[in-house]
């Protein structure tokens, strides 16, 4: 994929707050990344880092209030998503952009058969003939690898296993051949072997349809396997972004470095893991300066008072850290 192609989705300096009573939670504080057609971008971060909120904001699923988009822009195919009338955006949802949720059981309506639900998607998007819609649903179930699709279409979500359910969810998401699929921790609720199958399925479908994918995850292994680009999020900011191989191979942000050090590796001989000390910040009262400084071993006085600038350590590599260059070179 050429690096200079126009981005399909561009998130720039996105700021999202949740205001409740006296407290304001700064969930996302200036996240920026972009996805080009056909490529896979991963958003990597621990719980509470703002990755799912960002995804919901892109799909415009946030309840406003309590959520407020305090700043920034989301552009999809050049159109400003946040400024677009909601109806217009909803019409494009499903056709051009779709989403896979973490918990497929919760994301499927419990009172309808899965065949009906998929067929309903076609009907909602203009298919007149109910028979045709159902036939397409069965076809789709077969395509995502559900055995005996004709009969399984008549089953309800609770009658499927976790992996099969996620396949159904994926079937619905890709039904209309979207250009961009947002997968919000699609494999977190599944066991490891099923995770691998689901990721393979997603990659196969991605190639077949030629869609781009945003993969939201906290699993470094999955990122390394499937993503082209990665944006590492911490405390609502994208602290580092770049090509996956570069970022994971030679991190420029202390947080990425710490993440990598906390993962067990086969090659390293019995070196003990180095966990990240402390806990993620309370986003109602984020730390001054760089949000990572209380847990960072590179932190200096500057980090406590000044928000780090975006440092371009290499072509296509940006890290938000005062010491990015030294981490990049020395880490």
């Amino acid at each position, binding site marked *: 994929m050429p690096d200079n192609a126009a981005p399909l989705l561009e998130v720039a300096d996105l700021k999202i707050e949740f205001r409740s009573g006296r407290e304001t939670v700064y969930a996302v504080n200036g996240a920026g990344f972009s996805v080009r057609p056909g490529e896979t971008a991963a958003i990597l971060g621990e719980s509470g880092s703002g990755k799912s909120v960002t995804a919901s904001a892109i*799909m415009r699923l946030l309840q406003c209030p309590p959520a407020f988009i305090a700043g920034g822009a989301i552009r999809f195919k050049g159109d400003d998503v946040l400024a677009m009338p909601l109806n217009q955006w*909803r019409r494009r*949802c*499903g056709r051009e952009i779709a989403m896979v949720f973490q918990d497929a059981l919760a*994301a*499927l*309506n*419990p009172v309808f058969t899965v065949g009906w639900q998929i067929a309903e998607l076609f009907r909602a998007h203009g298919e007149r003939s109910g028979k045709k819609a159902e036939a397409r649903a069965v076809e789709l179930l077969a395509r995502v690898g559900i055995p005996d699709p004709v009969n399984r279409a008549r089953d309800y979500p609770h009658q499927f296993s976790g992996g099969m359910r996620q396949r159904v969810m994926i079937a619905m998401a890709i039904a209309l051949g979207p250009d961009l699929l947002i997968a919000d921790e699609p494999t977190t609720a599944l066991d490891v072997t099923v995770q691998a199958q689901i990721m393979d399925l997603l990659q196969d479908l991605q190639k077949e349809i030629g869609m781009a994918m945003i993969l939201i995850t906290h699993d470094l292994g999955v990122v390394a396997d499937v993503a082209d680009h990665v944006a590492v999020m911490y405390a609502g900011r994208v602290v580092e972004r770049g090509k996956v191989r570069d970022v994971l191979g030679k991190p420029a942000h202390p947080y990425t470095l710490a993440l990598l050090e906390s993962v067990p590796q086969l090659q390293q001989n019995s070196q003990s893991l180095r966990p990240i000390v402390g806990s993620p910040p309370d986003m109602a009262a984020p730390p001054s300066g760089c949000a990572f400084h209380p847990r960072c071993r590179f932190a200096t006085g500057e980090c406590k008072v000044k928000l780090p600038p975006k440092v371009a350590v290499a072509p296509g590599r940006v890290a938000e850290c005062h010491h990015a260059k030294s981490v990049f070179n020395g880490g």
Partner: protein
Amino acid sequence: MAQITAEQEAVAIRRGLSWWRLLLRDPIALVAALWLCLLALCVLAGPELFGKAATALNLRARNLPPGSIEHGWLMILGADTLGRSMLARLIVASRNTLSIALISVLVAMMIGGFLGLIAGYIGRTVGNVIMRLSDIIQSFPSLLLAVVVLYMLEPRVGNLIIVLAITRIPSYLRVTRAEVLEIRERVFVDAARALGGSRAHILFRHITPVVAPTLLTILTVDFAIVMLAESGLSFLGIGIQPPEITWGLMVAQGRNHLSQAWWLAFFPGLAIMFATLSANVLSNWLRIATDPVQRWRLEAPKGGDA
């Protein structure tokens, strides 16, 4: 061999048994359904078949106690103070009683449910206006409301239905709104939105089917309340006017003769009770049968607590 058949049955069950077979498996629900069918027959054909018998006076059979057939089998449940057959009158009264009750609860459910959906899903100003309207209806004593309205309008069947429906709307409205408030936060609603579902689509295709069983349950409970409310209005003389009869009116009239002829109030009361009971039993069965997650309870083979 036995295992294979059990397996085959399990497969057949997973694919869903027909409504018929499901109903046959639950004797209590079956009895309730049969009873309601019988009542439906009475409603449809009763007044045509027994209209004459219900109004024919037989002064020799005045206050005839139930259990004797010397005045014909129609007198099996006794006769009233004018010697009219209780059985025939019960059958004839079923049309008025059940149609008033059924239509008013249905109307209340549709209006209340619809407004509740809107109040719950759209919320804000529209929702507030709807909820305050419901408060107004609720803060008004329903009997007083009925008396006022029926005094101004004529006490006809149609007006009675309107009054009874209006007083029942708030309960549907509140329950629906509460359910919608919960359901709209569920992930599958977000998923439907993320896949391009419009507001109306989500409301009617995704939320309504989840709320519907609850409404159905309230409907059957309300069914009894409305029948009793109607008898209360009849008792006050602003409900159904004689010579039209309803079960409620029969109870109200029989109350005066309770010490000499208990059957005058007892049998219509029994009819109300059985109609309500079977409606409740059947709705409970329906609620389980239409819930895909609960349905196995009806489908599971009887015997042995697996």
